[in-house]
């Protein structure tokens, strides 16, 4: 009898510890979000979002050019990565068992484990040093490499969810493989593909090291893809490690903008996934 009570008590203790662990995890997230919101909201307003950074000792200033730079470089990265990665995913989906596919999958997983810093070093050496300038283009390319593994592997997973019965039906009706892919498989998996891209974009938007090494930073408006370009993560990094109170406050403001953007992307992706799952 005592043995049974002991077992029950142990079981309850265990459950309590698990609840505690989950509570801590959620508490930490809440703490981080709380600080980002509390310190960020104090500086975020329309002019903060639309002005250029101010020199030290000059009041005002904002993150307008960093916001645009981030949007542009992430967009550029997606523009490069999406077609290539979805094509690669189609290849993996069409040739699921080939040895080459296994190798491509392996390489993509390796790429997902490469520290983003190393990707920055690679693009710096291959592009920045060769062209002689830091640029938004180099930043976009570095981000496309960061995005590649997520888009490829999540796209493959999404393509695989299109039932083979439908594909066989399409082929039986005389459609070529290409037609089947374009008319059936890709549209069928579109929701999932978009989710993968959104998550990749959310990840790329928060990258610091690859952008710092390739696009450097800028205090002016973006005028060309060939010039150093500001971005939100680099701005946060520089401002956070500065001793100036107004710059530190701006770092929190920029962090708030970045975190909100990334959370919105994630929540939208999640809702989208729920929606497309339900439809299926």
């Amino acid at each position, binding site marked *: 009898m005592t043995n049974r009570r002991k077992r029950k008590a142990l079981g309850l203790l265990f459950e309590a510890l698990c609840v505690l662990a989950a509570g801590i995890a959620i508490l930490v997230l809440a703490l981080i979000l709380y600080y980002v919101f509390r310190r960020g909201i104090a500086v975020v307003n329309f002019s903060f979002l639309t002005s250029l950074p101010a*020199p030290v000792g000059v009041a005002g200033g904002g993150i307008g050019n960093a916001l645009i730079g981030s949007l542009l470089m992430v967009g550029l990265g997606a523009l490069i990565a999406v077609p290539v990665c979805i094509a690669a995913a189609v290849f993996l989906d069409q040739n699921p068992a080939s040895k080459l596919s296994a190798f491509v999958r392996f390489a993509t997983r390796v790429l997902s484990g490469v520290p983003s810093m190393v990707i920055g070093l690679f693009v710096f050496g291959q592009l920045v040093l060769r062209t002689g300038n830091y640029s938004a283009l180099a930043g976009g390319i570095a981000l496309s490499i960061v995005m590649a593994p997520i888009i490829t592997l999540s796209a493959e997973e999404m393509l695989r969810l299109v039932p083979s019965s439908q594909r066989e039906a399409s082929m039986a009706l005389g459609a070529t493989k290409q037609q089947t892919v374009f008319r059936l498989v890709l549209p069928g998996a579109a929701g999932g593909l978009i989710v993968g891209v959104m998550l990749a974009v959310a990840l790329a938007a928060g990258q610091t090291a690859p952008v710092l090494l390739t696009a*450097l930073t800028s*205090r002016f408006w973006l005028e060309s893809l060939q010039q*150093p370009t500001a971005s939100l993560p680099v701005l946060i990094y520089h401002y956070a*490690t500065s*001793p100036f109170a107004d710059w530190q406050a701006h770092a929190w403001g920029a962090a708030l903008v970045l975190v909100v953007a990334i959370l919105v992307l994630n929540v939208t992706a999640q809702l989208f996934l729920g929606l497309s799952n339900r439809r299926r």
Partner: protein
Amino acid sequence: MKKQSLLTRVLAVLACLVTLVSLLPAMAQADTRPITIEFNARELRGDVAPQIIGGRTMVPMRLIFEALGAEVTWNDATQTVVGRQGNVTISLTIGNRNATVGGRAVALDQPAQIFAGRTMVPVRFIAESLGATVEWDDARRIVRITSAAQSRMRSPVTSELRMTTGGASFPFPLYTRLITEYAAVTNPRVQIEYASVGSGAGIRGILARTFDFAGSDAPMTAAQQAQVWPNEVLHIPTVMGAVAVVYNLGGIGSGLRLTPGALADIYLGRVTHWNDPSIRLLNPTLSLPDQRITLVRRSDSSGTTFIFTNYLSKVSPTWRTDVGEGTTVRWPGTTIGGAGNAGVAAQVSQLPGAIGYVELSTAVQSRLSMAHMQNRAGNFIAPSVEAASAAAIIMEDASFMTHPTDSIAHTAYPIVGITWILVYRDQENEAKARATVDFLRWAVVERNLEPFAAELHYSPLPETGINRVRRLLQSITFGGQPVWR
């Protein structure tokens, strides 16, 4: 009949020719090509095109007044236009040749008049009354108006230019201010990016030509200069600055006295607590806590470290033999690194008991307590713009290529460094060469940096230094020709 008719015909032809020739000027007058109004090199466009009436170019009143920054009011009852810019008021009445400028009556060739529903005013009269200059380009039918402010503008280049530069973080706050100001006084605009990445990165950037010019607090080594031979990288001094010894001791503000020996002992790890007798003896009035000294240093290679270790090597034989000077050194004690001047200041302000070294501007901006250092004459001197300037009055090196640390001047602060801008002597791009020379001339030689330097706690170069900069700038060439005009 035939003869007569021939004569008549000849006469008729002659008459036609004469008429034609006499009409020519009139035809030229009636040139109907549109007129363009350019204001500070940008085209001004209104809803009604400029018209030439009676030999005067007339433009819509709002267009020209607003371009010149004047306020316009329209009095419908008296049919009068009043433009006001600063303390100048211009008043014109429709159809009336008498106008007033600042209360004085002026007679006009052409009065203001209504054309296509708009009030048209003579452009030259308005522009010149408000201090602008007006030129008429007859060939292209352009009225060029240059505002008073714009005529003081600098135009080193013919089209807008952006330059990528970077390096030392020591002068970064000053350079960001200068660059913002310079962009505002150039037309076409010259925008200079200066990334605060450290002197080492600046030197690497100029060698790899990823930077158009670089900032550095440390001169390049002979080996680095050899890489660019037969070209040469010029070191142009811009400002000097004190390196402040900062600390975080709760209630104790600026004014802690330190001797060169005490500072060296602290950084050598020989003095580990703030209440060490050697510090207490120098500061009998302060109640120093029994707190561990946390040493903060630059984690990146930097000119500030160079100035600081250069000073310690001059004043401490142990430092010279055990550690030496350099942009990064092997620190003997346990140290915490901060990236950039800003990073060190951030660490010091975060850590109670910390001591660190940052440029004066950063120290003041981040409200850190600063030590008074004993100089060679034995005086305890607070870091300041004046005390740093004093260090260069007796300059041991006339080429301004070494830091004036441990100066013999009585009022000099002892830890003072120079910061340089590194520029190739022979330039590859003409526009960038002109912009670089003009920027440095504007900033240093024409002393436009001085108000900002004072505000941000840098010390301007003495006269001898400015002369040196002029000579260096005059030696910069593009395609074998000097760029300086």
